């Protein structure tokens, strides 16, 4: 193999990588925040048997889980303008991620809610709590604690999936890498470093989510 690796040429373009990482983080954060919100609403709709809404959510979940993210992304960015909805790359990428994570988190959170023993809800009702109060104080927090590992995994998966958003020119890490290698023709080196950065982000994200779960959700009295 007569190829000399040249990682220093990537170093020259490091600001694009830094911006890319920040972009990925921003995208993931927005997607996670709103995605989990959608998920909670969806889980409620499915677990509480609101007719009509339940079927819609069920259909939405199945559709998202059985189609590739890149197709969802293309549909949002290229397809929606055809019916009058024009979005920037950033908006489209975020929306696609919210829709995607929303579907998965609906299922995950619903499983958590359904795993809560009925006896607890009966006890809370007997203590004259309203359905809404029961949901907020008894059900939701417990469900989130229980499913936090599964939800964390899904968040990491979505973060890794954001790489595909480069295809619609959203300015995240892969897009930055594409740009660099088009300039210095060191595709392997660039993507190698990029992969390392993703791995770092994935490991850090996992740690962050785990400690969030421990510290904020499980907040025990000392």
């Amino acid at each position, binding site marked *: *193999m007569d*190829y000399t690796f040249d990682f220093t040429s990537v170093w020259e373009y490091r600001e694009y990588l830094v911006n890319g990482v920040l972009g990925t983080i921003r995208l993931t954060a927005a997607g996670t925040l709103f995605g989990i919100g959608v998920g909670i609403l969806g889980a409620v709709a499915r677990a509480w048997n609101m007719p009509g809404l339940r079927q819609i959510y069920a259909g939405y979940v199945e559709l998202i889980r059985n189609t590739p993210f*890149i197709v969802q992304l293309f549909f949002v960015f290229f397809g929606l303008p055809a019916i009058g909805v024009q979005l920037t790359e950033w908006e489209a990428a975020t929306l696609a991620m919210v829709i995607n994570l929303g579907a998965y988190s609906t299922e995950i959170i619903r499983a958590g809610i359904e795993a809560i023993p009925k006896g607890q809800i009966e006890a809370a009702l007997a203590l004259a709590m309203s359905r809404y109060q029961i949901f907020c104080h008894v059900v939701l927090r417990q469900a989130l604690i229980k499913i936090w590992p599964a939800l964390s995994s899904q968040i990491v998966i979505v973060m890794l999936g*954001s790489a*595909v958003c480069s295809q619609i020119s959203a300015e995240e890490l*892969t897009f930055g890498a594409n740009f660099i290698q088009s300039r210095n023709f060191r595709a*392997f080196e660039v993507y190698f470093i990029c992969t390392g950065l993703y791995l770092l982000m*994935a490991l850090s994200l996992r740690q962050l989510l785990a400690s969030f779960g421990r510290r904020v959700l499980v907040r025990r009295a000392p």
Partner: protein
Amino acid sequence: MSDFSTWDIVRNLLLAARWTVAMSVIAFVCGGVAGLALLFMRTSKTQLLRIFAHAYIEVFQGTPLLMQLFLLFFGIALFGIDVSPWVAAGLALTLFTSAYLAEIWRGCVEAIPRGQWEASASLAMNYFEQMRHVILPQAFRIAIAPTVGFSVQVIKGTAVTSIIGFVELTKAGSMITNATFAPFTVFGLVALMYFSLCFPLSLYARRLERKMNVTR
């Protein structure tokens, strides 16, 4: 302004969908074989093998499939080998699949009670004999549902290979969109086709899981 009928579009998409199916099957089968080898390494008594398998799985589960694809595609090219998109895609998806299946199967193996290991050990079996005759047959039953479930991820993974130029369903969708300027219709149809491939498998996996939980 498009002079293509919807049927034209559907027909072309269906032709491309063949390659999605072919690629999925190849990746799943080859990935399964590699995954089994990884499983043995991951649960082996030799620490070096264990560490290697653990690292391999961490890397493939902690990085985007797109990056794995790029690295393979550009990496092989460094050796002067002219690699076609579908070879790179097949290889990348195979390695990707092997990592995930190995992890799934490891969970199933670890679900087998310790007593089974102890009994077969007491009956003088070595590690391979234990796995082959006692552990794997039992783990297999538990593994069917999640393995079928993962096949859906493989099919969805083939969509990413469109980025390096492999002409499967998603790439065809992009190309046809450029020709017809009907992205809503085209990508809508593309989504529908993926759905019809994946949804039956998802349902089957769920049914298998329910059956498993009933018999436990």
